[in-house]
Every structure is written in C-alpha cells, then in structure tokens.
C-alpha cells in the first residue's frame, strides 16, 4: 500500500514537473515574441498550444490552470507585461476555459473543429483581462472597448492557429505511447 502511495506521489510530481516545463515554454516564447511589432495577440499562439497540451497530456484535474498559475507567477516575478499582479489573469482565464471544456468535450483534441471552438473561447478571454488591466490604468471606456476588441481579435486568430497543431501532436504522442 505504501509502495502504491509512493508511486502515485512520484507520478503526481512527474506530471507537475511536466506542467512546469510547459509553463517554462510559455514564459520563454512569450518573452521571445515580445517584439513590439504591433501585432496584437501573437503570444497567444504558443500559450494556447501549451495550455491545451498540458490539459491533454496530464490526467490531473485543472492541469491547464496549474500550468497557467506557474507561467503567470514566472511572468509576474520577472516583471513581464503591464498588468502587474493582474497579469496572472491573462494566463489563468484561458486555462480555466480549456479545463472546463475538457470536461464538456473530453475528446476535443481529436477533431480540428472542437480545437478551434475551444481555442476561440479561450482566446476571447483576452478581452476581459485586457479590459480589467486597461480599466485600472485609467483609460477612457470607449477606447478600452476598441483597444480590447483589436487585441482579442488578434488573440483569437493566433490562438486558433496554435490549437490547430494539437490534434497532430497528440496523435503522434499517443502513437509513441507517451500519453
């Protein structure tokens, strides 16, 4: 019994560490894509990809949210973004949507249209998080709406593009017996 407990604990730690590595990849790609190119939402490409990957690869409850908490903590600790402590919302909200839809559609990774649907909904949370951040910065309400619409449109496009890699990657990982 003790052996079983220790094995499950080791497995849990292994899964948590994999989530940590996904969080590191999100953080690194977000930092490297920070080019000030005026292309809104381009960092959502890898964020949605790694959040969906963590949700599909790790059978822990709220795995994407845990990954988002880790990457958000890294982003705050290294002073990335203009949101300060609210920055973590930008990571957590898409992850919560992904976790929620993985319960509603447990095999969403097998079809492209379900991936697109989940990615669209997850990426559209950028509107809420951007609205909160802009609001606290004291921006005019009408400008906030325009600004957030532009940002969320870009985020949805890039998020959907990132999610299109998921069916192929998951199928390959299953073929290699990794998950």
């Amino acid at each position, binding site marked *: 019994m003790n052996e079983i407990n220790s094995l499950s604990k080791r497995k849990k*730690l292994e899964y948590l560490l994999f989530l940590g590595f996904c*969080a590191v990849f999100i953080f690194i790609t977000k930092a490297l894509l920070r080019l000030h190119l005026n292309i809104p939402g381009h960092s959502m490409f890898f964020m949605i990809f790694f959040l969906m990957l963590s949700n599909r690869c790790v059978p822990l409850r709220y795995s994407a949210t845990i990954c988002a908490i880790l990457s958000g903590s890294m982003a705050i600790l290294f002073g990335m973004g203009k949101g300060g402590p609210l920055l973590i919302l930008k990571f957590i909200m898409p992850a919560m949507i992904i976790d929620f839809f993985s319960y509603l559609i447990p095999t969403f990774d097998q079809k492209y249209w379900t991936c697109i649907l989940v990615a669209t909904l997850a990426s559209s949370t950028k509107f809420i998080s951007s609205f909160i951040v802009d609001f606290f910065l004291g921006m005019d309400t009408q400008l906030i709406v325009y600004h957030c619409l532009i940002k969320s449109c870009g985020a949805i496009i890039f998020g959907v593009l990132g999610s299109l890699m998921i069916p192929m*990657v998951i199928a390959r990982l299953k073929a290699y017996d990794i998950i």
Partner: protein
Amino acid sequence: MHNYMAKKIPGGVKIAVCISLSMIAFVTRTPFSLAALFFCNIVVILMFQAPLFLILKECRFFLVQTVIIIVLYILKFGWPSGFLPGLTLSIQFVFFLLPGLILSHSVSPAQTARCFSVILPHHLAFVLSVCIHFIHNLMEEVNEIYEAQIMRGARITAKELCNPANWKDVVNCLIIPTIIYGFMMARQISMAAKARKFQIDEKRTCWNGE
C-alpha cells in the same frame, strides 16, 4: 572575502534585486540610462558571483533576437531612422532577460523554492524552482535537437521556414521531440526526488553543506 559576501546575500534579496533590474529595463529609453543599467548588471554579476562565461554563452540567443528586431525596425521605418530605435529596443530586451539569467546562475534551487513558497503552495514552489533551474538544460537540448534534425535533412532552417509547406517539419522534427524530452526529464527528476524521499518522509532530508 568576495565569495563569502556572495554566499551571505539572502536568496530573497537576490530575487528582489533581479526583478527590480528586470522591471527597470522597461523604463530605460535613453542611451545614458541604458549604460547605467548595464553598469548595474555588471555590478550585480560581480556581487552575486554569477559565472560570467556561462551568461555570455547563453547571450547568443539574444544576438539572433537583436538582429530580428533591428531588421524589422529598418524594414518599417527605413535604414537610418529605424536602426537606433531597433537597437535601443533590443538592448532593452537583453536587459529585461539578463537579470533572469543572473538569478538562475546565482541562486540555488533551495533558496528559490523558499522564496517562492511565500506566495505559492509548497509543491508548486518546488516545481517552479526546479523548472527555472532546468531552463538551461531544456534550451540546450532544444538546440541539439534542432541541429541534429538539420543534419538529417529536416527543412527547419530560417530560410526554409519562409515556405509554409515546411512548417509541418517544425512540429514533427522539433516540437514533438522537445515534448518527449520534457516528459523524460520530468520522469528523471521525479525519480531522483523520490530516491531522496521527497513527499514520503515527514522529516526533511537535506545536506546542510558542511
């Protein structure tokens, strides 16, 4: 004496200094303030006894980034007018990421875990500190996979990726091996942690360094 001073600086102070330096990089715009920030980074490297050779070696990632930023600025604003803003931004970008490198080379995982555990649950703090510590290994492995795949004919060089038909090779030849390596590394670390009775014994087992 110098080494003794580096060891005496608490991990929390090192993290606070590096985060502050990272955040200051966002507000530095003039050449004078960038030079001052560069001086501050050098002082911090010397004070924290961070290995300068390793940090310079890892800065090659920034070189590619710098070239991309400058080229994009020149394409957008033209040759003379786009160069200086592009260079300033790329230097800002280096100064934003450099304190993170200094931090990861000068603070032990145990110190990092202790500081993170103030704001995060114990296990997540451990996972976060381990992952930050292994960033170098991950990046080196990604680089090795990239070079090995190019040698065996994968169409993933910067020039070949201009053709969208080659994008599929990035997933097959780079992303999937990287994910598999991430899984393997997580398994090895968890086995090592289990061998040291992490999470099993109530009493902590650690080497006190004496």
